[in-house]
């Protein structure tokens, strides 16, 4: 939806890390799926924030006029907001599609090491929660996490085979028919 105009303009002016961080933040917020983690950009942005915070401390130490100090502080706040919102947006997306991301290798590879650790823990916590709340209370054939594929081939196979097979197989088949139902 966004008009193309803004992107060309941005590449024209000297792109600072702040611009690159803003663009990554915008792309991450607009994209439905998780994008590649910008580790070097995040690293550089943190260093610059660190540096700027030290500068502000120095300014205060040499009792620079409060106006300049607050301008530097506002600049830090803006970059810090972008960084926090970028990381938070990603984490919330990981939470929302954790099972999907875990299964898709290419998506899993887009996560930072810490995000992967967070995702593994989230999946484990949610599975335990579902286990305790629902699965453990169901009849044992129905306790698997896997989506209950109602038309799963094996269950069907068991039923159709049962209907068409001759009498002889019925006895042999019936006892493992129950196991097919889960």
């Amino acid at each position, binding site marked *: 939806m966004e008009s193309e105009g803004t992107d060309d303009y941005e590449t024209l002016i000297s792109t600072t890390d702040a611009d690159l961080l803003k663009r990554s933040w915008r792309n991450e917020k607009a994209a439905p799926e998780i994008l590649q983690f910008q580790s070097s950009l995040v690293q550089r942005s*943190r260093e610059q924030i660190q540096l700027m915070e030290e500068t502000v401390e120095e300014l205060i130490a040499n009792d620079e006029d409060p106006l300049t100090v*607050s301008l530097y*502080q*506002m600049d830090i*706040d*803006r970059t*810090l*907001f972008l*960084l*926090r*919102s970028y*990381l*938070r947006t990603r*984490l*919330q997306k990981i*939470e*929302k599609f954790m099972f999907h991301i875990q299964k898709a290798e290419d998506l899993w590879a887009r996560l930072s090491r*810490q*995000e992967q*650790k*967070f995702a593994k*823990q*989230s999946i484990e*916590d*949610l599975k*335990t*929660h*579902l286990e*305790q*709340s*629902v699965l453990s*209370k*169901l*009849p044992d*054939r*129905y306790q698997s996490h896997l989506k*209950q594929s*109602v038309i799963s081939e094996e*269950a069907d196979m068991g*039923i159709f085979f*049962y*209907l068409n097979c001759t*009498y002889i197989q*019925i*006895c042999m088949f*019936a*006892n493992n*028919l*129950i196991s097919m*139902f889960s």
Partner: protein
Amino acid sequence: MYGRKASQLLKEFVSGEPGQLTGFNNDVFAQVIEECDGNILHLQALLRKMQEEGSNNQTNKNADHFGALVHHLSLVRNKRCLMAYVYNRAEVIQNLGWTIKHADLPAAVKEKLSISENEYFGKHSSNLQSYMLDLNLDLAVDMVPPKDPYIKVRVLEEIGEVLLSDQIANLAMHSILFLKRIDAESFISQGKMEELTS
């Protein structure tokens, strides 16, 4: 009709305001589990009947078999509804976890959660905390783009003397102060302060 109680659970959940949490409906939840227990009993009884009867009455056997199928389908349906109920409530808990730590959750909200949900909320909070510790960066603040570093707030509950990032402030009831945005954010989100826009 099979599955009706289970869908009642979900209808109750969607009728609540989005982002709001209604109490965990233990009664209906238990009734659905009961229905599942009933389903499995009938299912196994019908299968045993099929085994004993052998082949002398094929049409009767099919009827038994289809009865077993119906109970199986009802079980699967109930399972899907229960999982969706707990899963969707867990998503509300996840969103909530971004604004409030489980430890700070008022009792009135904790009562709405099942035992397992409270446990899950606690684990979610600590998982979030450990991620932020790994990064050494607090992500639960700065939810709203920054304006002036300071915002004007009114204290709504007696909080008393508090060490803030830039000052020691006496957060007395009804007092109006200029606080650093980052300090005020968590108090506001817990409803202990409100922002004033002059």
